[in-house]
Every structure is written in structure tokens, then in C-alpha cells.
């Protein structure tokens, strides 16, 4: 099965109104070519799942500036002033989620779990409207799974089967969102033959990956 496609073919999976999870932390580990291609195709009304909205000229921050997204589910927007402006103007819905909770909600969706229990957010606005459970005398919030239609990853080295190695701090949310979307697209910095990437160094197994592009 040939998973290698052009950027354009890869992005053709994304339709208006879909929920798209994107890897990266403040832009580090974000597939910039895929981000740019979505803007170029004039796709609109996406719901974004990402750690943050990066910067106005980097990562998914460009989606905010170009009005690709109508809703975002993120932990931090402080480095992108356009996100705050659109939020205050009522142009963009923003759901802020504690970073660890965000990671675990996505992981739960990918792992087939019905949710996770976390102490994070107890006694804060984060607990509003959520079920609380007590386990061994400690109070937890029930946080529900978070799944996407599409996941966009950046892999540093990807073999032709779709096994991924992430360099240094670019790993962040990439291997987690790889498990929690219907279609998983990886933008490779480098594509290698099957066997060139040692099976021990694989961080996202090919079974999660549908499309490889670069």
C-alpha cells in the first residue's frame, strides 16, 4: 500500500467544518507545509485541537490569522495576540484546557477509554459542568475523550510504511494525536526506505498512519 502522497492530495482529506488535531508546541514540531496548504485551499470553519495557537507567523497561529478556524481547543493562546482579539470580538470560540488534561483526553480517545480522572482543575472554573468522583478520599474531575477527524503530524524521519521518529522536543503532542483521528497525515522532514529506521527507534508505529507527505 502506497501511503506517500503530494501535499495537495494529503490536504484533500480536510473539508470545511472538520475537527483537526495538529502536533507541535509553540510551532516546534508543527507540519508547516500542511498548515500552509490548508490556508491555500481556503478551507474554513475548522475546529482545531492543539496545545496552543503559537505565533501569528508560525504554526497553527497562521490558521487563526487567516480565519481557517471557528473554534479552538487549546491550553494556551498568550503568544498569539490575534487569538485573543478574535475571542474578545466573538469571532472565535476558545475552549481552554489544562495542558496535561488535553494530552490525556486525546490519549483516552486514541486508547478507547471513556475518559480520565484528574485532580487538575478541582476548585477552579475548569470543573464547571463536570462530574466529580472521589477515589481513595481524593476528588477528581471526569474529563471526556477528545477525538479528531484528521490529525496532522510532523515527523523528523518517516519510513515508507509510515513509522515515525521525532527529533528532540518536536515530539510533544504528535504521537498522541496520531492515535486519535480518523485520518492521520504525517509531513516528513525526511522519508527513508523501510528498514532504514530501526524498529527500536520508532515512536509512532505505522499502524496509526494513513498518509505520508513532504
Amino acid at each position, binding site marked *: 500500500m502506497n501511503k506517500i502522497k503530494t501535499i495537495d492530495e494529503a490536504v484533500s482529506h480536510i473539508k470545511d467544518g472538520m475537527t483537526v488535531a495538529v502536533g507541535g508546541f*509553540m510551532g516546534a514540531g508543527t507540519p508547516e507545509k500542511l498548515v500552509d496548504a490548508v490556508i491555500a485551499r481556503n478551507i474554513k470553519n475548522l475546529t482545531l485541537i492543539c496545545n496552543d495557537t503559537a505565533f501569528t507567523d508560525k504554526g497553527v497561529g497562521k490558521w487563526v490569522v487567516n480565519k481557517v478556524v471557528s473554534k479552538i481547543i487549546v491550553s*494556551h493562546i498568550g*503568544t498569539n495576540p490575534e487569538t485573543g482579539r478574535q475571542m474578545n470580538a466573538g469571532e472565535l470560540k476558545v475552549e481552554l484546557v489544562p*495542558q496535561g488534561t488535553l494530552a*490525556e483526553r486525546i490519549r483516552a480517545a486514541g486508547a478507547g477509554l471513556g475518559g480520565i480522572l484528574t485532580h487538575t*482543575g478541582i*476548585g477552579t472554573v475548569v470543573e464547571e459542568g463536570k462530574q466529580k468522583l472521589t477515589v481513595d478520599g481524593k476528588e477528581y474531575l471526569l474529563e471526556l475523550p477528545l477525538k479528531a477527524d484528521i490529525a496532522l503530524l510532523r515527523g523528523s524521519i518517516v519510513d515508507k510504511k509510515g513509522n515515525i521518529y521525532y527529533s*528532540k522536543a518536536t515530539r510533544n503532542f504528535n*504521537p*498522541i494525536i496520531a492515535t486519535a483521528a480518523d485520518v492521520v497525515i504525517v509531513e516528513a522532514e525526511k522519508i527513508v526506505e523501510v528498514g532504514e529506521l530501526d524498529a527500536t527507534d520508532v515512536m509512532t508505529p505505522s499502524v496509526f498512519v494513513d498518509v505520508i507527505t513532504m
Partner: protein
Amino acid sequence: MIQDKDRKREVIVKRVAEELKDGDLVNLGIGMPTLVANYIPEGIDILLQSENGFVGLGPSPEAGNEDPDIVNAGGQPTSIVPGGAFFDSATSFTIIRGGHLDVTVLGALQVDQEGNLANWMIPGKMVPGMGGAMDLVAGAKRVIIAMEHTAKGAPKILKKCNLPLTAKGEVDLIVTDMGVIEVTSNGLLLTELAPETTVEEVIGATEAELKISENLKVMNV
């Protein structure tokens, strides 16, 4: 009390550094807490965590030597020390939430006498998002607040926080330019005074009730 802005910072971060023990895994918040790394006492070997996905956070690289694949939690270029390790965000917060992080040092907008912390938003003004702060404060074994005692003269240590909370009842220690305050089950206890500072000045700059330790010392900074 200390007037000079730089001296205030120095006193706070030096004193926080004294709290760290050999072998500690520590997360330093953005801003002033980051400076604590410059004052780690000799012979104390600590490991710094960067919540975007590694332990072994090193110094900022020199201009021209930045590696775009190594950034800190603020997205700025940084480095990793020998013996460090990279991982994904779920592992990063397993470390934070699972009781593996010894100390987190953060700034605050407000802290109160029940150990509640507000440091992530001012409604209508500043809503950057909580990032990893809520997990850090809820999960770290020890939560140390490093901040100036007042904001433009107004107390930040209150009877009750009125800004949205980051976490409830999780703060252990408050280090300011005026003193060191422990959060105990009986309220706030002033254990140390900053140099050139009096107990009366601290009480005057604090809205919360302060108990004064019988063994009140002067900060060794």
C-alpha cells in the same frame, strides 16, 4: 524594605534556590522563576523539567547556535544538558501529575491564606490560558510561589483570592522581596524577613492574616 527592582528579584530568586535539594526534579515557570537556575547552590545537582517534553533543560544557546527542534515551554530556543531526556506530552504530564516532580516554582497574581493561587487570567484583560500551570500546581510535591510582595503597592497576599483560581489549597511556600511565608494548616506563617525589612512593613503590605514565627530569621541572601 528593599526599593531597588533588581535587588528585589535577586533576593527572591536566591532565596528560592536555597529551597532546592540535591537530586530534585524542578519545573521553573516563565519569567522570574526561570532566574532561579542561575543561583543553584554549589554541590546541589538538580534536573530541570521543560513541560513541552524533556528533563535536563540547559542554558539558552548563543546566537547562531540555536537548534529549532529544542525549544522551552515558551517556544524560545534552549538547550538540553548531557543526561537529559526527551519525551511526549503525556509522559511530561505523567511526571508532573503523578508525583514525580519535586518542586514547581511559579509567579502569582494573588495567593491567599488558604494556599489558593490565582496566576492564569484577569477576566476581561488578560486570558493567556493556563498552559501547564494547573497541572503543575495540582501535581508537584511542593509548590513555591516567587513574586514581588505587592503589585504597584497593592497587596497580592490576600485573605481570599478574587481572581479565577489556578488551584485550590496547593501552595506550600511564598518567597517575596519582603520575606518567606509558609502556608500551614493554621494559616500563613512569616518565617523569614528580607534584609532591610521590618515585621511591621510586611504586615502593612499583606492583606491576609500573618502569624509571626517565634524563630523569625533574616533571609540569608
